[in-house]
């Protein structure tokens, strides 16, 4: 029996202690199975699908490819911790619902985190930049059209040319 790891994680602004972890446990496993944060999904476990996308010190990564203990003392943000103002949902989450970008929903949390990350760095991405940004997130239901539409709706909304702004200013 190999030695176990005990370490502290900063997750969604809260300090969490992980005790007795197996040395090889991924951050994804720690989040889901030890810390009760099932938002990041476990699918391919090899970085191919993007459904476990989280922010690690503000950088978008696949949580399945991060060794849990090596994330000690670093800032982890999961889909549960994205800034949502006073509401229950972030503007990206709301846009996914409004545009019908969610079907089975398994890829959705990863895509939400990815779109948030993109729009933080690039508030007005071109279509190509948007497509490249989500190239690491596989969706087998939607064909991506409505996901792209949702992201574009957020871009429009945040820049003040979106539907609700137009309606309220009319």
């Amino acid at each position, binding site marked *: 029996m*190999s*030695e*176990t*790891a*005990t*370490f502290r994680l900063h997750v969604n602004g809260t300090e969490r202690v992980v005790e007795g972890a197996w*040395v*090889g446990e*991924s951050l994804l496993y720690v989040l889901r199975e030890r810390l009760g944060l099932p938002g990041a999904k476990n699918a391919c*476990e*090899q*970085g*191919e699908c*993007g459904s476990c*996308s989280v922010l690690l010190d503000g*950088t*978008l*990564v*696949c949580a*399945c*490819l*991060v*060794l849990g*203990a*090596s*994330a*000690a003392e*670093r800032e982890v943000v999961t889909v549960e911790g994205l800034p949502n103002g006073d509401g229950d949902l972030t503007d990206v989450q709301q846009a996914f619902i409004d545009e019908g970008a969610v079907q089975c929903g398994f890829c959705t949390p990863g895509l939400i985190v*990815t779109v948030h990350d993109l729009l933080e760095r690039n508030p007005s991405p071109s279509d190509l930049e948007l497509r*490249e*940004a989500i*190239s*690491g*997130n596989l969706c087998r239901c939607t064909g991506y059209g409505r996901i792209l539409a949702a992201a574009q709706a957020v871009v429009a909304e945040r820049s003040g040319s979106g539907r609700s702004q137009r309606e309220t200013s009319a």
Partner: protein
Amino acid sequence: MNGPVVLPQSIDETLASLQETPGATILAGGTDLMVAVNAGTHRPESVVSLARVSELRSWRRDGDDVVVGACVTYTEMEHGELAALVPALCQAARTIGSPQIRNAATIGGNLGTASPAGDTLPVLAALDAVIEIRGPAGTRSVPVLEFVTGVKKTVLEPGELVTAVRLPVLRGPQEFLKVGTRNAMVISVVMAALVVDLDGHTVRLGLGSVAPVPVRAREAEVFLEGQVDWAGVGNGRVRVADASAFAGFGELAATATAPIDDHRSTAAYRRHAVSVCARRAVERAFS
């Protein structure tokens, strides 16, 4: 007292950790290692993580060279000044994995894994990159073609660490081409990296995924160097006397390979793809 996962803060501390825990697995970006751990094919007893070794995470100019720290990520190679100094490295970085993978994966990790399909390796071969290594016996520098000794095998001894990659900054066009089954998230079937050195009057072609180790197409290089009007190099553009030399270059490049049939491709297709990629690379560079 450290647990089984050690997080050193410096190269010196890393080397000390490797001495204290013989057999420890070195963890860089995790994009190869964690795939094996998740699949249960690698079960580490102890891990030395490079996550906090900030001195491995930067690059610098050093005279006519750039020295790229082992933990510089592909995302960092894709953009900015480093991308402009070593365009083929930037192009290779852009083809790798997904944004999530490029944010995590490192050049040192690509070397440590030493996969035949390692995407930076043909670029490093074309540039005659030198791998800087530190270990218990001190520092040593190894040319990349000597560093990789076989499929996932390197000259690294126990306790040694790749600290940086030294690359020349060259004047002249550089190209990177890769064949795979799609554009994102793909393991390469064939790679070709072309570097033209207008001052040294050399053409260098590195090839990947076509042999157990990255290779150089020496015969093709010498052939094309003989076709180039080096005296006409003035504005950074170079010409060859006869455009049919491009196809000849491609055919000679294919003879430098030792590909295999596997689940990703056949040896015959790989040879054909090398000739096409090499030809396209020089057509782009010399047009």
